[in-house]
């Protein structure tokens, strides 16, 4: 954090995050490990999870899926860093229902510990409906928690799939950076 001295004409220091990123990487790795642990714990009966490890409810607006942050808050809570930070997640080339619970766990941890989530979608060659829906739910959940989510460098395939499902606008992947990679 920036120390203020009396004579300083610079109040809020916009570059302070540059000095925080090193710490951030470490904590994020720890967080991801905790997330893996959570995936294994995931069939504990007291949480009402659907088959992909996420909670199913009747009246949710996205086909019954919600991104429930409760479990991560319980397990990851102690590790939650004091400072808010940017979490980065890189999507795999093939993102489908087989690995959606992995991604779900990652996103939960990111939600629990960051004030911004950057998702690198440049490598995506295949992405399925389940994953795109998860991302939509992430966007909505994050927005309600004032967390910014940006999907960076979306590949042509990512954009095509998102468009097909009419989700490109919600996911905000229509900017000029599309298809650059």
């Amino acid at each position, binding site marked *: 954090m920036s120390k203020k001295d009396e004579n300083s004409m610079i109040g809020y220091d916009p570059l302070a995050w540059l000095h925080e990123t090193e710490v951030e990487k470490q904590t994020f790795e720890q967080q991801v490990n905790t997330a893996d642990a959570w995936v294994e714990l995931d069939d504990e009966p007291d949480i009402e999870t659907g088959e992909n490890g996420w909670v199913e409810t009747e009246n949710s607006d996205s086909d019954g899926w919600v991104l429930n942050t409760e479990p991560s808050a319980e397990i990851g809570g102690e590790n939650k860093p004091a400072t808010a930070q940017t979490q980065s997640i890189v999507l795999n080339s093939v993102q489908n229902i087989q690995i959606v619970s992995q991604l779900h766990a990652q996103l939960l941890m990111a939600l629990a510990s960051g004030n911004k989530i950057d998702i690198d979608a440049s490598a995506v060659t295949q992405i399925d409906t389940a994953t795109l829906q998860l991302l939509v739910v992430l966007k909505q959940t994050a927005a309600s928690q004032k967390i910014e989510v940006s999907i960076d460098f979306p590949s042509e395939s990512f954009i095509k799939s998102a468009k097909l499902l009419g989700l490109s606008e919600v996911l905000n992947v229509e900017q000029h950076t*599309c298809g650059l990679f």
Partner: protein
Amino acid sequence: MKARIIAVINQKGGVGKTTTSVNLTHALARMGNKITVIDFDPQSHLAVALGVVGKQQSGIDEVMLGQSLLQQQMLPVRDNLNLVVAGPRLQTLEQLNESGAHRGDLLQKALAQNLENQDFIFIDCPPSSGVLVANALFAADELLVPMTSDYLALQGLSHLMGTIKKYEMALNKKYRLRLVMSRYIPSRRISKQVLQTMNKYFPGQVLATPIRETAALAECPSFGKTIFEYRPGWRSAKDFELLAIDFLAGRVM
């Protein structure tokens, strides 16, 4: 030897990208380095500042569209200094189009040709973060970031660093980053504090000579002259001569 490719970049407008591109490249050329400078801004200010005002002349636009080679578009504008103008179609390359023709690697491909005996290629970027800047970030190995000494410039720099880090991750490369203190007003207290802040976050990366704000530098573009032609020997000419040495020798604050 491969030419070093340097993008002069800052998405904030009016910070001195073009002034730096014009006068630093001329200073380097006067020292005997072979330089090509690309006007990568559809506004064509760089060409104007170097005295080239042909309206419909093609340039880097045609090279990026694969319709000519970079060598064919190089205009010798001073000894050791070639200019590649923006060209009328650069603007359309900046705009998003549905066909997917907007690509990030067009400039990189264009510069991958064998550029015989060029030491440095400079790219004067536009004040945006669109497709053109993405192309510059793909193509460049080094970034030169002119910064003014006001508070909002720090804010802008924070944004720029975020962008640069994303590209470094996505392209899996690490830029050599240098900052230039531009339009510096030594008598202002905020100027010194912005400079201190820059040194705190970019130790060893701020070039040693600040370019001071002077009337002569503001005047010379309208005559199509560099500072070495417009006011040789004046203090702004000296600033840029020193900056050229900083750049070559890696002299930092």
